[in-house]
């Protein structure tokens, strides 16, 4: 809202939409609707009352409670393990893809990009059911490894987005110049391509990490015994009741997500 663009005019009256009577009210309602749930979760995570909706006093005890819980620790480790492996593998695949796509023929590139990008718009539930059916068929045991495999698959297009954007911004004569100055393919990759792509790769990795960390549907379908990730565990908790513990856990997840998005934003902005 800082950059004042041309005001939108209401048809017939010539008035700016900004000055329309209910404009402000609607705007605030939308913001409220978006952020009130998050505010509530964070606020009640400090509520000392066991009954979530009634405020009694301020406490940190739910956080210490949650962090001391063995099941939650195990779920957290599962989530981190999945997210880290999925991030590393999907970023490597996405980097290769981005470079490969660049060298492809135009028609093939559009088609390949469509195929790779499909998970971005396919309903996740369909992907989850399909993956479950496939894994059962080819006898891949459910659990953390199955979740990791699936996460790699759907993290690739997310990781690819910033990498590809970055690659497109590079003048292709730069690679020719490096070859002209005596660099072979491998040296060009290591000293030119990779450093130029790095901001995109870091942004892609953070995006993939977040997407994997807070995935619920796919993880829930593939969890099996012992494969519970943090979001799946939280879902289990609220099936009984929304306890302040759930709020504390969710607040921590939220904090991690915000942190990662901020890092990603700062990294991509600085390098421009």
């Amino acid at each position, binding site marked *: 809202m800082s950059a004042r663009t041309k005001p939108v005019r209401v048809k017939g009256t010539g008035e700016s939409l900004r000055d329309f009577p209910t404009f402000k009210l609607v705007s605030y309602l939308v913001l409220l609707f978006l952020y009130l749930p998050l505010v509530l979760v964070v606020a009640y995570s400090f509520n000392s009352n066991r009954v979530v909706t009634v405020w009694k006093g301020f406490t940190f005890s739910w956080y210490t409670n949650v962090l001391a819980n063995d099941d939650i620790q195990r779920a957290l480790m599962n989530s981190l393990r999945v997210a880290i492996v999925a991030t590393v593998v999907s970023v490597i695949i996405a980097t290769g893809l981005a470079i490969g796509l660049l060298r492809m023929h135009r028609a093939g590139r559009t088609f390949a990009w469509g195929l790779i990008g499909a998970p971005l718009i396919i309903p996740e539930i369909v992907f989850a059911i399909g993956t479950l059916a496939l894994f059962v068929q080819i006898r891949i045991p459910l659990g953390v490894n199955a979740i990791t495999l699936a996460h790699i698959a759907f993290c690739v297009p997310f990781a690819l987005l910033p990498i590809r954007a970055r690659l497109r911004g590079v003048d292709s004569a730069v690679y*020719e110049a*490096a070859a*002209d100055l005596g*660099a072979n393919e491998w040296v060009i990759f290591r000293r030119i391509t990779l450093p130029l792509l790095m901001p995109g790769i870091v942004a892609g990795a953070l995006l993939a990490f977040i997407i994997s960390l807070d995935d619920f549907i796919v993880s829930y379908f593939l969890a099996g015994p012992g494969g519970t990730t943090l979001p799946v565990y939280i879902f289990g908790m609220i099936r009984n009741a929304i306890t302040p513990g759930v709020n504390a856990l969710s607040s921590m997840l939220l904090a991690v997500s915000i942190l990662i998005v901020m890092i990603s934003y700062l990294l991509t902005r600085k390098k421009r």
Partner: protein
Amino acid sequence: MATGPALSIARVSKAFATPEGGEVRALDDVSLDVTDGSFVVLLGPSGCGKTTLLRCIAGLETPDSGEILLRGERIDHVPVWKRRVNTVFQSYALFPHMTVAQNIAFGLQMDKVGKAEIERKVGESLEMVRLSGLGSRKPSQLSGGQQQRVALARALAKDPEVLLLDEPLSALDLKLRRGMQTELKRLQRETSITFVLVTHDQGEAMAMGDQVAVFDSGRIVQVGNPEEVYLRPRTAFVADFIGEANLVAAQRDSSSLTIEGLGAIDAATLANPEAVETGAVTVAIRPENISLAETADGAGVVADVTFVGGDIHVDVELGANRLNVRIPSHGAQPPRVGARVHPTFLPQSLRVLADS
């Protein structure tokens, strides 16, 4: 310079497939010898194949047929990174994530030059292009002209056998371009490295080249020093592309040349009496070599008069031909539009052109 050509291009052809499924012959049986230590300009309109030839020499394209020899050794199958030629790219292609000094050092590191030697060479190269003190800057912190110099320094630091320059001045504004032309000439003289420069700007070619090779649709139509290609153009394309020329239809027989409305001229007095093609020919005459005399029975009619500062351009209709005449603006009163004039010129300023 008695050692033979530094670079020799022998019957090189290269075709590209068009998106429509056709084929474009970017290079059609091109041969060219480049003298060691000379400044050669490949000149032609866009799409004439000059850049393709440069890329073939650099190794960024592979010719379909023909040979490229560097000091007598074939290089057309040597990969880019092993050729002792370096290129200054049109877009400069500086590495944006490296400093100016790192950009220049890159090529030397590829040659496994020692650290101290690299440092010395980088300093020397920066000094040569007058950028001393800017080594720690990133390319994005430099002006276009400075980036151009870095690209030059980076390529020259490797002491190439031949330096290739792909339209290096096209991204600079006019004033800067003039300065860089002089600068490039100076660098070439000081380093005595063979320069091969591609341009579509004939003024640039004339100002810098020891030799100018004029390209037309994938072929070299004429090679010569600037005076030669300007004063003795071989074909209509060269006459028209380099400077301005009137291309006039004429009849040539064994002893004379006849231009409609001007009568016969003794063939022996022409600029190139040895051209023995007879029948319908095209002759070239530069606008500054024609004078106009206003007479009531003149063969031409003034169609247009344009004042352009030092010169006045007069368009004269002469039968089916149209003559573009340039007369000095400080001279006599220019003719009015519609006046009858008689064009006069020395017969030796007329050249009979070859078909191709």
